[in-house]
């Protein structure tokens, strides 16, 4: 997930907090937040995942003029390499993410490993994303592990 510019906006933080059922006023009430320990509106700890909104190439969003693989008149089709699942997510916080921050998100690949189970081969892929503020200081480091199931090859191999 990469985004040159990821503005942390009050409306997106409000919608995100609502989606996780979190009514904490520190995510929506500027007066409450200003008087609180964090001295201003902040974002929930998993909010940086919403940088997907600012990633021009993010694949899990329909884009104007491009076919979408989900259902419409038909049930849709699984794209090549699709159907992967999220196995792990880890965040390291260098400071809270604040409404008004303009972050950048830069992702690099991490390790890749495999496990073989009864149902097939599981391939794990790690990606590390650094979120930096306008001064270039690290705000959040995110480590994500995705898993893709691959059927066992026919016969002995």
């Amino acid at each position, binding site marked *: 997930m990469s985004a040159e510019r990821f503005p942390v906006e009050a409306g*997106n933080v409000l*919608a*995100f907090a*609502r*989606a*996780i*059922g*979190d009514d*904490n006023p*520190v995510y929506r009430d500027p007066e409450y937040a200003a008087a*609180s*320990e*964090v001295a201003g509106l*902040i974002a*929930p*700890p*998993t909010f940086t*995942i*919403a940088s*997907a*909104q600012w990633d021009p190439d*993010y694949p*899990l*969003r*329909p884009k104007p003029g491009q076919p979408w*693989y*989900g*259902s419409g008149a038909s*049930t*849709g*089709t*699984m794209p090549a390499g699709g*159907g992967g*699942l*999220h*196995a*792990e*997510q*880890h*965040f*390291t*916080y260098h*400071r*809270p993410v604040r409404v008004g921050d303009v972050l950048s998100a830069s992702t690099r690949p991490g390790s890749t490993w495999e496990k073989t189970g009864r149902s097939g081969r599981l391939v794990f892929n790690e990606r590390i994303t650094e979120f930096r503020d306008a001064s270039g200081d690290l705000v959040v480091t995110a*480590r994500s592990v995705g898993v893709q199931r691959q059927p066992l090859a026919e016969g002995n191999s």
Partner: protein
Amino acid sequence: MMLKAADVAVGDQHAAVVANDLSRTQIVQYAGASGDYNPLHTDEPFAREVAGYPGVFAHGMLTMGLTGRMLTDWVGDGRLLEFGVRFTAQVWPGDTLTATGTIREIAERDGVPVAVIDLVTTNARGEAVVTGTATARLDA
């Protein structure tokens, strides 16, 4: 709420019901807010007939976000240093989830007291859907 080092001990627990009869609408709400419109989570015909699941299921990150709510309600705002989870089972519409944190260790990091917290979020069948750990700054 802020936790003071003197007021907490290894083994202390905090639990909260973070989803009660999880709705498909909340999953869609999370898709919109996060930007993750993966049809596995938002599109019943696709999830069933193309991907072969019983139906749509929640984003792992929704469950992590729900778990984070228990955590920040407990340790206070802006106090997390680390928060990491594994997604161990799928979360389905209709699930009721309870997130529990248990203090594993009280330590000091760069001269600041911290709590290392084990996390587990379970469904009504008692299965863990998320396990993990968090580290939170405490007041001295």
